[in-house]
């Protein structure tokens, strides 16, 4: 029998109908695209919302590739450089905090090698006291029990401060070998408050400040255990009556000011990247600042510190009558610290670059004063419950998801109606521009919604921009996913695979249309 001959029909058995599992596998491997497209147009509201919510949770909670953290911190830096620092951060704190800095030039001009003896520190502190500061914090560690005949001078200085009613604080050593005391026992025995100078650093940049710290000596522990960190303790003691400190449950999110104290500009200059000497007062026009902040961030940074700086050289020379020195000391909290190559204590600030760490303490103090004891934090407290920033962001994004999903469903419905209409075809050019317009409006709508939610969080609970900005980025991602119809396609595929039904008939109403 040749192959060309027709086969009798009754000799071929009908193909066996595959079982349900094989049919599912078959649909997984070779889905019916037409069926999927129809099903995707009928995605239910709950699925889109759940899909977006799941994506948001993964993005925010699991921090894939460090994207979430990087976004937060990068935005915090840009906000400090571009918006908050130059335009919104007030100068109340700047006018009440100063830094007396020992630097290499001080050592050079006074021909005194480091470390100084206690007598020299006592001279500086005595000179500061003459101009009546509000409080003084010594940001040097006096841990080593080296012999020093001038030790009684610093003890006398502590007594003089006490007599004058000016609070004086010392800082203690941290991460010391077992058995090492954080400060010399002679100083500790005076009862002077000794504070923990720890500074949190994230990826090498100082953007936060601890609220709680290790208890050392001379400081009363907090009811919940532990003691307050250096700047927070000083603020509590010095300004607590005027600006009661709100309960702080997380870390402070530092806002870095960019407008350097005008007195700094009198005696300090900076060299820009071209080697030209520039003033410490930043006069970059707003539009140029915006451009530079995005494309050449380092050029917008100002090496001059925000906090007013008192040259210790002037204090040692007894220039306590200099009007600028008087202005920088009187009624201010003075942080006395150093910037020395031989004793590395520097931090990277988003708006300055590498600066002495004493300015981080000063900036935390500045924030506390400027925000009247309600600094920006990385947590929010709702009805007595402390939420870290991740749950807060997830909660914040829910209304954004609900609104975007509702708008998306409206768009799908309208599209189905338009498809059912015949004779209403529009030109390709019109369709192109309409699509592009909708796309832009859609993204900005998501951006605006999330921004509104974030600003509400800041105003209502003091949550820092760094801790809600992820909501904005995720919202725009969600908008993009809705625009390309990702949740719809996933629904179409899953529904097709699971149910495998024929495309449903369009509703009667749409048929009529």
């Amino acid at each position, binding site marked *: 029998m040749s192959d060309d001959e027709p086969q009798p029909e009754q000799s071929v058995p009908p193909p066996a109908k595959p079982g349900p599992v094989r049919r599912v596998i078959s649909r997984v491997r070779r889905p019916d695209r037409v069926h999927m497209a129809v099903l995707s147009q009928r995605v239910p509201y709950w699925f889109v919302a759940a899909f977006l919510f799941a994506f948001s949770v993964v993005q925010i909670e699991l921090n894939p590739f460090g994207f979430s953290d990087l976004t937060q911190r990068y935005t915090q830096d840009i906000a400090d450089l571009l918006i908050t620092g130059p335009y919104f951060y007030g100068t109340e704190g700047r006018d009440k905090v100063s830094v007396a800095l020992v630097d290499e030039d001080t050592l050079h001009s006074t021909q005194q090698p480091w470390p100084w003896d206690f007598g020299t520190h006592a001279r500086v502190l005595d000179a500061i006291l003459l101009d009546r500061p509000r409080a003084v914090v010594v940001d040097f560690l006096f841990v080593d029990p080296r012999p020093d005949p001038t030790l009684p001078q610093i003890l006398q200085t502590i007594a003089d401060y006490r007599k004058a009613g000016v609070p004086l604080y010392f800082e203690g050593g941290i991460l010391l070998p077992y058995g090492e005391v954080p400060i010399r026992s002679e100083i500790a025995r005076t009862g002077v408050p000794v504070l923990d100078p720890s500074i949190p650093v994230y990826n090498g940049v100082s953007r936060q400040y601890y609220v709680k710290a290790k208890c050392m000596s001379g400081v009363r522990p907090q009811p919940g255990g532990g003691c307050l960190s250096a700047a927070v303790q000083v603020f509590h003691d010095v300004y607590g009556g005027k600006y009661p400190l709100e309960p702080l449950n997380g870390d402070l999110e530092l806002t870095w000011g960019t407008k350097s104290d005008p007195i700094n500009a009198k005696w300090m200059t900076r060299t820009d990247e071209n080697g030209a*000497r520039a003033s410490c007062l930043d006069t970059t026009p707003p539009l140029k600042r915006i451009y530079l902040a995005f494309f050449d961030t380092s050029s917008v940074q100002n090496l001059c510190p925000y906090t007013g700086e008192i040259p210790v050289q002037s204090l040692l020379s007894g220039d306590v009558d200099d009007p600028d*020195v008087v202005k920088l000391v009187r009624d201010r909290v003075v942080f006395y610290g150093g910037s020395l190559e031989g004793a590395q204590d520097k931090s990277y600030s988003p708006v300055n670059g590498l600066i002495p760490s004493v300015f981080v303490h000063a900036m935390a103090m500045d924030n506390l004063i400027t925000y009247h004891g309600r600094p920006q934090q990385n947590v929010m407290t709702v009805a007595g419950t402390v939420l870290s920033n991740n749950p807060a962001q997830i909660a914040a994004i829910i209304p954004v998801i609900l609104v975007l999903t509702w708008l998306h469903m409206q768009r799908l419905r309208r599209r189905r109606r338009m498809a059912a209409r015949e004779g209403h075809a529009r030109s390709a050019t019109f369709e192109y521009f309409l699509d592009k317009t909708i796309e832009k409006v859609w993204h900005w709508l998501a951006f605006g919604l999330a921004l509104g939610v974030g600003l509400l969080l800041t105003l209502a609970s003091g949550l820092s921009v760094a801790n809600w900005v992820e909501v904005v980025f995720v919202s725009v991602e969600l908008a993009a996913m809705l625009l390309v119809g990702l949740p719809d396609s996933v629904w179409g595929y899953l529904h097709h695979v699971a149910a495998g039904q024929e495309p449903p008939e369009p509703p009667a109403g749409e048929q009529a249309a």
Partner: protein
Amino acid sequence: MKPILWATILPGLFALTLAATSAQAGLFGSSSSPSSDACSGSAGDTIIAARTDQVDLYADPQATRKVQTLDKSKFPTCTPITGRWPNAMLQVSVGGTKYWVEPHMVKYRLAKGAQPVCRNLAMGTNEVKAGATRGLGEGCPKTGGSH
């Protein structure tokens, strides 16, 4: 003008003139720097008077050995500075004996003025730029832009 008006205005003008003169002389305000005519008879570097209630006298410029403490009233005025140390300590003769005193405890005047304190910040490093006069920023190199 009526006498009653003169009676009102004249005391006011007088008070204003007095206040302006006093302010110029440094009677008001925060500055208590020695006026230029204090100890005008003393040429050269001079300690004008004690600033603090007590002045410590040291035997060495490193201020490691305190010899005695003098009350403000007993500290000599318009005394020449007989020596200066790089750490800014001042040498003075009290009762025929030379001692070192801490500059912040006394008001003093330098005939040639002191070096200004200036800094130029460049990528985290400082460069010393010396000038000619005393005080924050006086004599420091000027830059473009506002100050």
